[in-house]
């Protein structure tokens, strides 16, 4: 808990979905949690882009960690690729939650806002499916 507040990253094929999910966290949870998002490919179409995801992670990264919420297929693969591009000592502090992105973003954001650690924030996202 001494490392600060876990941040939340959102990756969707659609920039509108990613932006909307991030906005829900800001409005429902508050601004104490840093939320980053990205969506769409480099051409502006539906898709995800590992370089953009990496950029988001770098913007919101804190020693407390980052929980990533991702949507379908490529979003997860590109997020994994982005995490592998991080410095080795940061890779374990960025986790992909196995959760639906909107619900997971709000529930993990709520837990993050309480100062909970990375494991607890991931668990809060994944509890939604359980």
């Amino acid at each position, binding site marked *: 808990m001494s490392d600060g507040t876990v941040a939340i990253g959102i990756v969707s094929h659609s920039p509108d979905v990613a932006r909307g999910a991030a906005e829900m966290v800001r409005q*429902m*949870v508050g601004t104490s949690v840093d939320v980053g998002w990205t969506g769409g490919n480099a051409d502006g179409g539906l898709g995800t882009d590992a370089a953009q995801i990496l950029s988001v992670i770098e913007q919101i990264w804190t020693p407390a960690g980052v929980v990533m919420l991702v949507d379908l297929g490529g979003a997860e693969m590109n997020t994994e690729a982005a995490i592998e591009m991080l410095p080795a000592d940061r890779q374990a502090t960025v986790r992909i939650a196995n959760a639906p992105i909107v619900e997971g973003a*709000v*529930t993990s954001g*709520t*837990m993050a*806002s*309480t*100062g*909970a650690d990375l494991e607890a924030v991931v668990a*809060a996202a994944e*509890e*939604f499916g359980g």
Partner: protein
Amino acid sequence: MSETQQPRAEATVTLTNDVGLHARPAVRLTQTAAKFSSRIELALGNQSEWHDAKSVVKVMRLKAKQGSEVRFRAEGDDADAAIRSIVDLVERHFDG
């Protein structure tokens, strides 16, 4: 034989806000509960099952509607303060 008793507190409230324990109120309740070290649980009206008030997912799953009676109980050093804070939150209609 004496057991170490932790301080306990409890309260029953009626949800008078417009929507009951919908998403946003559930977030507020969880955030408030998490400020205290005590174990804090809630139960709906006459149901006997208790749920962790620090889990926003569990709180949302209750789907407590406006007019629902909700019981809270806390156990731990700051149990009293926790229950007072939660009752206050409910009475403020989960505002702020």
